[in-house]
């Protein structure tokens, strides 16, 4: 009984406070299913092109990449003269909520997660590359994350995010995104992961309602590339 009580305290189901979940070793990427290979391809990205188009002829900006760290992304962003920030958002998500995330509504756990992943001052970033990480967040956590992103972006800062436009809840490929140039991405598919919810245009408009402007680009792979401006 004591063991169960201890577990529930560690999960944060007790009073919200400074209790933090135990730190797990950063997990590896999700294993590929049998017969599945890691696939890699390059595709054009209108969203990426627009995102960096807004920063054309500027340098010294601060850009946050939530997709983990890749040499290509560092090279591209720093070659433009910008400062590169990296967070492995999904790794921190798995450390906080587990490999098979269940309850993402616990306030203290959400707060812990945001402290680990987005602990930055307000109005700090000119741009945020969220890629597809938001697809895996359940509504309470997603809402808190979007609020935090809105705070850490500077006024007139931009956020680029990808959402699958499939209309059925099904496991979707888990990708990494490497910038080849200002209009092309190398997309590597590692395996599959369950999406937390489905997104349509209306839902996305509501999600980003605190932002000033919203633009959609639909790709051939049924992906919505969304740029929001603070």
């Amino acid at each position: 009984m004591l063991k169960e009580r201890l577990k529930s305290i560690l999960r944060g189901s007790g009073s919200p406070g400074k209790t933090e979940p135990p730190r797990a070793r950063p997990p590896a990427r999700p294993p590929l299913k049998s017969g599945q290979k890691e696939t890699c391809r390059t595709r054009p990205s209108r969203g990426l092109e627009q995102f960096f188009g807004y920063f054309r002829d500027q340098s010294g900006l601060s850009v946050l990449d939530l997709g983990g760290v890749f040499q290509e992304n560092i090279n591209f962003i720093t070659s433009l003269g910008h400062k590169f920030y990296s967070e492995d958002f999904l790794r921190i998500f798995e450390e906080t909520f587990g490999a098979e995330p269940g309850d993402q509504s616990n306030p203290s756990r959400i707060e812990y997660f945001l402290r680990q992943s987005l602990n930055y001052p307000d109005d700090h970033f000119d741009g945020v590359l969220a890629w597809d990480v938001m697809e895996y967040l359940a509504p309470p956590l997603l809402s808190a994350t979007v609020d935090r992103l809105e705070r850490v972006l500077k006024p007139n800062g931009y956020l680029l995010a990808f959402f699958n436009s499939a209309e059925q809840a099904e496991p979707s490929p888990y990708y990494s995104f490497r910038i080849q140039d200002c209009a092309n991405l190398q997309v590597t598919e590692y395996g599959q992961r369950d999406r937390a919810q489905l997104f349509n245009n209306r839902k996305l408009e509501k999600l980003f309602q605190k932002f000033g402007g919203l633009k959609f680009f639909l790709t051939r792979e049924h992906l919505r590339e969304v740029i929001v401006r603070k």
Partner: protein
Amino acid sequence: MSSMSSMPVGRLEPDTSRGGSASIGKAVKIVGQIFSREDLFVDGDVEGTIELMEHKLTVGPNGKVHAGVKAREVVALGTIQGNVEANDRIEIRKDARLVGDIKTARIVIEDGAYFKGSIDIVKPEPAKAAAPAQRPAPSAPATPAPATMQASVAEAKR
């Protein structure tokens, strides 16, 4: 390599006559400031600061550095938690973990490495070419200087 912990005196000067690099084994823990005038390999625990301005720091696979680091070059195979400044380059290998802000001229990160923080690329200023010796161009005086003053200046220049 010199190490200053809480002791007020007794700063050890490194013995550079042997060449090679100094190393901190995996069973060693140091809390304090490390200053080195040779390359350093850390496979143990270090808390504090590490400075090797003209040399290379390698954090081995067992190494855990909770310190601010300044070096010419840094290679991480283990864990670094702290800000890192490398004049030349930083390399973060596949199973390494670096949490902190990086300032360097070049960076190499292998796939699989964990990094959390910021990267500021600072290219070194190109060495200025030695300017040929030039005579200072004589500036036309606004008003003609008195003869005595001009003579004394000419004598000073000789």
